[in-house]
């Protein structure tokens, strides 16, 4: 078991290391090759040519935060459905009914979100 485990995941790690190495080489190459000329105006953040006003570290719409929360809710649902889908044929009717209950609970939350206007983008 140990051997086969290593056989399937060591190559994946190796792939990541090589891909990361390639990315690192590209980043280093781009900072070494090519000319560098420091100009004050060039160092400013891009703002369509006008002088930048204020900082970009500002508060932004709370709606993005809401989307993130809804995402966590539904993505966890999706992840719980994955193992269920794999053993579905063994669980048979029992699994189907249990899953219906599970989805029904989430659909209630979904309808609540919809009615509350959380899915509306203003």
């Amino acid at each position, binding site marked *: 078991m140990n051997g086969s485990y*290593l056989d399937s995941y060591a190559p994946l790690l190796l792939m990541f290391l090589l891909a990361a190495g390639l*990315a690192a080489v590209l980043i280093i190459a781009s900072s070494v090759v*090519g000319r*560098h000329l420091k100009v004050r105006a060039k160092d400013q953040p*891009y703002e369509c040519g006008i002088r930048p006003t204020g900082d970009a570290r500002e508060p932004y719409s709370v709606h993005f935060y809401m989307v993130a929360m809804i995402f966590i809710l539904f*993505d966890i649902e999706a*992840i719980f*459905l994955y193992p269920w889908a*794999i053993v*579905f044929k063994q669980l048979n009717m029992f699994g189907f009914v249990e899953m219906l209950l599970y989805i029904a609970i989430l659909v209630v939350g979904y309808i609540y979100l919809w009615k509350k206007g959380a899915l509306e983008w203003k």
Partner: protein
Amino acid sequence: MEFVTHHPVLVVSLIKIAIALFVVMTALAYLTWFERKVVARIQSRWGPYWVGPHGLLQPLADGIKFLFKEDIVPPAADKISYVLAPFLALALALTTLALIPIGPATISILGQPTQLVISHSNVALILLFAISSIGIYAVVLAGWSSNSKYPLMGGLRSSAQMISYEVSLTLSVVGVLLIAGSFDFYDIVGGQSGHWVHVIPKWHIFPQILGFICYLTAAIAETNRVPFDLPEAETELVAGFHTEYSSFKFAMFFMAEYANMITVSCLATLLFLGGWLSPFPETGAWRWQLYLPAAGLIIAGIGLIVGGLRGVQLSAKLVFPVLGIVCLGVGYLCTLPGVMPVIQGPFWFTAKVFFLLFFYVWARGTLPRFRYDQLMSFGWKFLLPLSLINLVVTSLVVVLRLR
């Protein structure tokens, strides 16, 4: 030599990774060329034409130009995350490709029998989703660390869009898992072999057409492509999250985007389009299909020779016939008895992936961009319920057929 005998798996996978990275990097480069050509034709233009015959050296020229451009790190930026973002984007986009098998055959490298996949895992699908989800961090980091307003807005929009469609993407695949009952791509594709009434292949796209539509839409949104390319909506946000990037760091985001396109197309092929399986039955009357890869290459070779010699450009007259002869040679190799069975899987797999990539480019050439509120309500109010309905109906059918 001792290393080879002690760690045969590592050495063999090192060879496979080297080949895979080379092929993928070339494919990435020429995917940009292909996209520009196709979009140009859709818009009645020629596209890249002058760098090499028919612009074939354009990707190389672009790469060199990117490398020699000035690499600016804005002083206001958060240095570590600013550099980390393109690094993560590219490294993770390339890593996912390790999990994708391209054929059923077992080949022999250095006397070691090995499969046509770099990492054969029994939870490959989950691993693939896990690795590609980390890619969202690259977008968030790039947008935030630049410390500039356009990247921040682009990054926020992009991450909200990507996580919104990620839900539909993961849910649309559950239908396939219900039928296949495995996370292993070899099992998923193996379950799609055979035919209904001797003609229609048993691919998951037919029972799972809803799931396929959900998957494809969500995948296009996940990779930030037209018509869902709001994160980099040029007319509103300059370039979105990578506005402050220059030189090769800028190019790396594009390389990652194209690599992700290839990954989701491969995944769609494996899950819905029967992977490396041929659409024709494997009976004696259909034996001629084994010669299809060779025939395709030979036709392409003849086309290149004739078209090249009749071309206007001198470089085309010189280069295309040579490429044509190479095609003819490879086509002849594909008829050899040792090569023919091995080449079938990769041939069909590549053909299907290529078709999906063409579909991507086609969509880009024809569809207008969504508005942001339309995009969000399309994802949450249409695609999510649709994939849930697909899931419930599929499980009902599966459970009823078990009785």
